[in-house]
């Protein structure tokens, strides 16, 4: 059996063990009070099978199926389909990420090309980079006065640093030889930047973008829990308030799958622009 086949088998086995454990853990408690007077049990609400609150696999399956069957249903502000919520979250992430790229890539070029800019801006980057993006939220809400725009800002601020740092690093470490070729061919600054430095640095820039996107997807859930209204993060929080753990678990799985797909997308981009020296 091939390695891939063995790995798939082990993965399937692990999944089966996890699901099995879940199933056992959420089995209805064998009624300890079997001897209880049924009338009394009914009065106490103990006649129905009792669980620990965690949904059983069947309950989770049913909840998931209900969500997946109508992903775009819209029955009021607190009951929108998972598709709509995801679309809002992805929209915010895309917008914040794109704005960050528009700032980080050109600025990273400047920092990578100019040692002066590098030294002058480095203290700011070092101080701003470790700030949790959510710490900006109150300030954003106060200045922007719009919850959706604030969450986009938070995505922007968390995506900008890895892209900025990777772009400047990629630009600064372009091989001297290639720059010398461009110089001896009298290629101008713009042409050298676009046709030599940019393609040379693209793999490193894309690595930065992949990291940024990963962080952005982590942050959007938390940001939406804070600002509310719409989005997958809000959905999780809303379902927690509804005490619908099935929907919470379903949403957690969806967040994981979408995050993986985003990562795969950037992985494919990296492969497309990679080069072998």
């Amino acid at each position, binding site marked *: 059996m091939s390695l891939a086949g063995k790995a798939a088998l082990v993965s399937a086995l692990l999944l089966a063990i996890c699901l099995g454990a879940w199933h056992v853990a959420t089995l209805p408690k064998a009624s300890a009070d079997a001897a209880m007077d049924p009338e009394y049990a009914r009065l106490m609400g103990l006649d129905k099978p009792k669980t620990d609150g965690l949904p059983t696999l069947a309950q989770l399956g049913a909840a998931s199926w209900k969500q997946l069957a109508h992903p775009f249903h819209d029955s009021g502000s607190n009951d929108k389909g998972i598709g709509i919520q995801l679309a809002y979250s992805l929209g915010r992430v895309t917008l914040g990420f794109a704005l960050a790229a528009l700032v980080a890539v050109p600025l990273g070029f400047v920092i990578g090309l100019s040692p002066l800019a590098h030294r002058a801006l480095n203290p700011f980057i070092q101080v701003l980079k470790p700030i949790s993006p959510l710490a900006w939220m109150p300030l954003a809400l106060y200045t922007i006065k719009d919850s959706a725009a604030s969450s986009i800002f938070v995505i922007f601020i968390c995506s900008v640093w890895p892209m900025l740092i990777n772009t400047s690093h990629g630009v600064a470490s372009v091989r001297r030889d290639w720059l010398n*070729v461009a110089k*001896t061919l009298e290629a101008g600054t713009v042409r050298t930047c676009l046709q030599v430095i940019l393609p*040379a640095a693209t793999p490193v820039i894309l690595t930065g973008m992949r990291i940024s996107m990963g962080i952005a997807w982590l942050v959007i859930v938390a940001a939406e829990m804070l600002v509310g209204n719409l989005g997958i993060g809000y959905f999780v929080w809303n379902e927690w308030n509804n005490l619908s753990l099935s929907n919470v678990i379903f949403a957690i799985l969806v967040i994981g799958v979408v995050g993986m797909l985003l990562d795969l997308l950037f992985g494919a981009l990296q492969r497309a622009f990679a080069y072998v020296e």
Partner: protein
Amino acid sequence: MSMAPFLQVRGLSKTFTRGAPPVFCEVAFTLDRGEFVCIIGHSGCGKTTILNILAGLDAATSGEVVMDGREVAGPSLDRGVVFQGHALMPWLTVRGNIAFAVRSRWPDWTRDEVRAHVQKYVDLVRLTGNEDKRPAALSGGMKQRVGIARAFAIQPKMLLLDEPFGALDALTRGAIQDELVAICAETRQTVFMITHDVDEALLLADRILLMTNGPGARIAESLVNTLPRARTRHDIHHHPRYYQIRNHVLDFLVHRSKLLQQGIADVAANDSFAAATQEETP
């Protein structure tokens, strides 16, 4: 009008760190149009730095370089460079790498004109059929051929080769040397080339500049290669003067390059070598 040499290098010296002795000093030589000149010397004597100064990529601490009546003050399309590590851009194909140079030289050309010109030079270095390959898919020898095609394609007034065959195996090197001889004979290209390889210098060069060791290196001799110009790898070593010249260069590299650096040249001045092939630089 007096015939000024095509390239004139005067009083060139380079100091990398303030206070340290110069890597080389008072380097002076000339190149005539269409001449193929090799420079030989041990590592660290500043050969590559001299070539970079000629290319305009590096600045001399003192001295000047005049090519075709104009002072060299920066890189120019008039001087094509073949780099030591081929320096091909790995994200471009063979065609893309050469086309990058062609479009630099003739920015107004149409796509078809560029393509036709590139094809001509791909054919010249015998890489026909490999136009769409990326450098990673090429052997070392093929990569260096692309580097040569890229430098020739801009039709420079002078070609600067920085040890272009250093990383190649002997068989590949021989084949490309033959091609270079043929291309240079055809185009009457002026070439300045760095090499470590005495046989290569004898095969290719009309004149060989011998450098003493660094620091404080200088050009000790300018040796005219008196072997007839139609040289080939197959018969050059049968020429009666071949080993005489070869031994002279080897003696220089083994003994005198060091002694000359220490300023005891006269002690080392040997030998029964025919004075006709040799002219000491001042």
